[in-house]
């Protein structure tokens, strides 16, 4: 229906690009020195850049440190637990670590623009830094855990370094802490965790599903590590640019219902004493662009290790979104912040009914019915009033119809995005139908709880999953 918008006609005709220097080359803050960096059309000198970054970082983080956000920050900052910093080795998380160190562990003399004249005491008793090593599934990729550990130790002796492997999500023996939190583990799998992880990844039908599954595994491992370390806060180094990429990528994969969680979320779990605990996931650099992070790292001499990133290239929605947003940022520099600001004005429709077993985020019920309504994949999906074509004999096909959806199946406990990841096929590629797919430990635990309640055997659970393990092109 769209009759306009031919990209080949006349490039950039209707979206006027603003000049990068709005007025002149003098810093807009001190109005004395020549600027060194342009941030969203405004020029800043190097001296004014640091307090600006620090201010944005603290303005995002500090309202969420006290257990009661209403408590005024001037009365002091005191978290209810420890702090866990997720360090990927990439730019954002490296800058985040540096900012935490400089702001709370070795605060400098008061600088111009600094909001706290009395210095800041660290609001957390202990600070942990966790690195999730995904080198196991990156063919030929070096293990970066050692340089990451050195990076942490160079920065601070008070921060405690923790290394978690991605395959730990499938490890029932080497994650005693995880087991304690999650009560118990039930599994008959005898494969090594790495083999289980690889089998799980290989069973997914698209490149997009693989990269989003890896992200989900990392995220849940971070949350469980936060619980293990009694952390009340999990900080991630997501910059404004990265946030916009994740928002658009999530929306493109059907994750609109958890749009709020992409920016900030609270994860609830029960500790060993069965007391409900909350981990606040905060992205303190979500108001700072990737360019500013790069300048901070450059001017502070941070030796960024670099992170492993799984990319499925042109077949991966995450990678496509990254390329798209990075391209837009170059030509339309305001777009990145507009995306984040727009999504911040959104909320989910209706109340949250459940948590997704896979990603542990809020999930809507009835997503399968919705899918069935909008696309007929079998003659069993049609209504009685719908008359199929003459050559179709429904009576003879009755036994071939898909089994009725089981309301207690895993599918009904998955969010739309995870369900789509498991079932949506690619145009290209053919996935071998797997019969025995290992599952992450937390999914098995959740299912085992369901088993107690609904008497679903592991075998029937596997049978239910079998519906998702599609032969492509069929």
């Amino acid at each position, binding site marked *: 229906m769209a009759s306009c918008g031919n990209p080949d006609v006349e*490039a950039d*005709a209707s979206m006027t690009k603003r000049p990068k220097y709005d007025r002149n080359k003098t810093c807009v803050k001190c109005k004395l020195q020549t600027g060194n960096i342009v941030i969203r059309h405004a020029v800043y000198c190097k001296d004014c850049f640091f307090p600006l970054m620090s201010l944005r970082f603290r303005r995002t983080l500090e309202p969420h440190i006290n257990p009661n956000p209403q408590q005024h920050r001037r009365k002091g900052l005191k978290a209810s637990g420890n702090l866990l910093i997720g360090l990927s080795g990439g730019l954002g998380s490296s800058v985040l670590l540096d900012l935490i160190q400089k702001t709370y562990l070795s605060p400098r003399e008061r600088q111009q623009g600094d909001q706290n004249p009395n210095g800041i005491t660290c609001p957390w008793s202990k600070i942990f830094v966790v690195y999730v090593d995904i080198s196991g599934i990156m063919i030929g990729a070096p293990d970066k855990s050692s340089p990451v550990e050195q990076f942490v130790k160079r920065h601070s002796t008070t921060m405690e370094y923790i290394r978690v492997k991605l395959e730990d999500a499938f490890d029932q023996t080497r994650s005693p802490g995880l087991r304690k939190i999650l009560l118990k583990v039930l599994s008959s799998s005898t494969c090594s965790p790495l083999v289980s992880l690889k089998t799980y990844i290989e069973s997914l039908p698209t490149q997009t599903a693989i990269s989003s599954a890896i992200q989900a595994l990392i995220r849940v491992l971070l949350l469980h590590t936060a619980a293990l370390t009694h952390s009340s806060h999990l900080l991630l180094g997501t910059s404004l640019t990265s946030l916009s990429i994740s928002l658009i990528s999530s929306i493109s994969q059907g994750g609109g219902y958890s749009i709020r969680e992409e920016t900030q979320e609270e994860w609830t779990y029960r500790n060993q004493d069965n007391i409900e605990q909350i981990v606040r996931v905060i992205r303190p650099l979500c108001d700072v662009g990737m360019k500013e992070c790069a300048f901070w790292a450059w001017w502070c001499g941070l030796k960024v290790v670099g992170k492993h990133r799984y990319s499925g290239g042109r077949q991966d929605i995450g990678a496509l979104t990254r390329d798209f947003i990075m391209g837009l940022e170059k030509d*339309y520099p305001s777009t990145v912040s507009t995306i984040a600001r727009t999504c911040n004005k959104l909320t989910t429709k209706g109340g949250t009914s459940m948590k997704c077993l896979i990603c542990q985020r809020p999930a809507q019920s009835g997503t399968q019915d919705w899918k069935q309504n909008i696309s007929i994949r079998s003659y069993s999906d049609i209504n009685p009033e719908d008359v199929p074509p003459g050559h179709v004999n429904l009576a003879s096909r009755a036994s071939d119809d898909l089994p009725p959806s089981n309301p207690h199946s895993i599918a009904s406990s998955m969010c739309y995005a995870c369900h789509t990841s498991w079932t*949506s096929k690619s145009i290209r590629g053919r996935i071998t139908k797997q019969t025995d797919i290992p599952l992450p430990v937390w999914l098995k635990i959740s299912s085992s709880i369901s088993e107690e309640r609904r008497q679903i055997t592991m075998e029937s659970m596997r049978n239910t999953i079998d519906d998702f393990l599609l032969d492509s092109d069929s």
Partner: protein
Amino acid sequence: MPPKLCALCEAAKATLRRPKTGQQICRECFFFVFETEIHHTITEAKLFKPGDRVAIGASGGKDSTVLAYVMKTLNERYQYGLELFLLSIDEGITGYRDDSLETVKRNQQQYGMPLKILSYDELYGWTMDSIVAQVGRKNNCTFCGVFRRQALDRGAATLGVDHIVTGHNADDIAETVLMNIMRGDIARLGRCTAICTEGEDTIKRSKPFKYAYEKEIVMYAYFKKLDYFSTECIYSPDAYRGHARAFLKDLEAARPSAIIDIIHSGEAFEVKDEVKASQRVQRTCQRCGYMSSNPLCKACTLLEGLERGSAESGLTDRARKKLEAEGPAPDNVRTIPFFNKPVTGNPRVSIAVEIPPGQ
């Protein structure tokens, strides 16, 4: 190697791969699922009631041509009891709209539906050719979009219809969700996934193709040998939308469900109440009576700018202030006729329409 059987009926030879599901199916099954899904969309949303007078926004392109065909088919098959009309807007683009209107006229003959063509020239005193001659190719889509929306409502009002259906497909809606997020257009983002929109002073408008893939619409038109006009508008330089469209095509290539997934995302969120409260209240234009969030609606503002030789005044605050400083609009400036929404159930046909022969 035996021929691959249709994944749906498992009886006939599969002849196509469905873009929406990836299933290899036969042609007859494709027609069935395509039409039935649209029927499900219509019935789930309870779009019509028997006796409704419905105008099909017809441009002569693939979407509206297929829409007219499918609406006629479903109306007969499921006895919706609708009175269907074709409504076309002639923007006045030489070599583009005049050609596509010929397609609409052929559709009128083929489907036996009354046709009403309303032109920008008739309504605003300007054609897109003359607008582009004044404003150039930059921003001309703003004029066209604003004028078309009003023109459709006014054309529907003259037909005395209760409802306008447009051929917006799933690709269009997914693209609009992305565009509104990237442009920060929170008001449109909140309503762009709604299948049906109706303001107090506007005619109900809906999109039966909301979940239909563009590729499937083309496929349907191809197999049914439907006659449609296919050319991009010659004045369409919205490069920003072009970026979003190209991105969406990449997403679809990576995972065909991406289009539906984006629509599902758009349906899953809504604008926060505190943000809604800060949005401007809808009222009516002082000059033409059409819905507006300002004293003057966008079409009147743009038209006044054109008439006074300051087309930019409808686009930028600076130009608007400059025009306001020159004083009120002179009396000889052309204005849009006052808009009266038809009373539902009491149709008033005030302008003659072309009725196909034999009716």
